[in-house]
């Protein structure tokens, strides 16, 4: 097998310190900015940053029915969000099937949760593609796509990551690599918790979500 045991070379350590450094600078920047904004009388909207997990649901995308949507359109519900793409053979269908299982287990309480699948491959995952794809998993699953810039912005706000990998044998010559996390977001769009499909059986996640509703 071609999997090498992972070690941590000094370069990575350096990179890590730089990354943490920038996280700190970013948080400090946001704090100063919001303080300034409030001081200058622009703070009529209450913005709260936790700093601890600056993951927030903030996006402007198009849903699988062709409607322009932002996080505000789901403000009456909690959000269960997963980033993936429809050419993904393993993790994406597995995770979406898992999320669907969780929704079924929630029964009537599922009305209080918006299950959202955001593509990281908007070039191929157009509105009709998303519509056909999400309908296979769950009737309430929402597929979101947009321009490359809109998707990049959504991913940035969720602090998630994706990357295009060129591969000659792949369909259209590329694969997308992406973080495989499921985000549970509060109706306000603020971060609540993060899960992975393999982390717990669907019953456990359903129970955990039900307690929070």
């Amino acid at each position, binding site marked *: 097998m071609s999997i090498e045991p992972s070690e941590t070379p000094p370069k990575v350590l350096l990179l890590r310190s730089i990354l943490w450094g920038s996280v700190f600078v970013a948080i400090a920047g946001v704090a100063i900015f919001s303080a300034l904004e409030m001081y200058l009388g622009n703070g009529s909207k209450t913005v709260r940053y936790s700093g601890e997990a600056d993951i927030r649901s903030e996006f402007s995308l198009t849903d699988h029915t062709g409607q322009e949507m932002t996080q505000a359109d789901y403000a009456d519900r909690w959000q269960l969000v997963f980033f993936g793409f*429809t050419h993904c053979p393993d993790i994406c269908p597995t995770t979406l099937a898992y999320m669907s299982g969780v929704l079924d287990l929630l029964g009537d309480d599922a009305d209080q949760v918006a299950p959202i699948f955001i593509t990281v491959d908007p070039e191929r995952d157009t509105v009709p593609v998303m519509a056909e794809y999400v309908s*296979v998993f769950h009737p309430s699953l929402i597929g979101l796509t947009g321009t490359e810039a809109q998707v990049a912005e959504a991913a940035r706000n969720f602090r998630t990551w994706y990357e295009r990998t060129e591969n000659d044998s792949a*369909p259209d010559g590329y694969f997308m690599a992406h973080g495989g996390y499921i985000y549970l977001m509060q109706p306000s769009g603020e971060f609540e918790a993060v899960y992975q499909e*393999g982390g717990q059986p669907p019953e456990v996640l359903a129970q955990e979500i039900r307690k929070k509703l």
Partner: protein
Amino acid sequence: MKITTLATALTFWPFFASADVTISDGWARASILASRPAAAYLTLTSDQVDQLVAITTPIAGNVTIHAVETSDDGVSRMVEVDALDLPAGEPVTLAPGGMHLMLMGLSEKLEEGTELPLTMTFASGVRMEVSVPVLGPGAVGPQE
């Protein structure tokens, strides 16, 4: 673990009959949309040290073995495995979210309820033909 030896396991070379590989819990996920890569899963148990080196199927241009490698920062990437090590007597499981067979260049969609034929070649020279059931797009494990 449920051992359902799925369909026919044919040894083409009786000379190597001593190298015995059992294949169980095999399944593939139905295609949701056309011209998408598909995934198939199974458990391999070899009674001696061996390697799975090639997989073919008449309905896909190529089949590769993929593992998921998660880096320290939590990013998962698929990595292609050229030869899958099979330790003696120890089951090696390909399951959702972990290792899988990836089928590319499908000539047709994988339809739920059909069977996917696979020919597997091992380093020992053993060649096996199995066919695994195609389960629904929302399936997450082998059939009960």
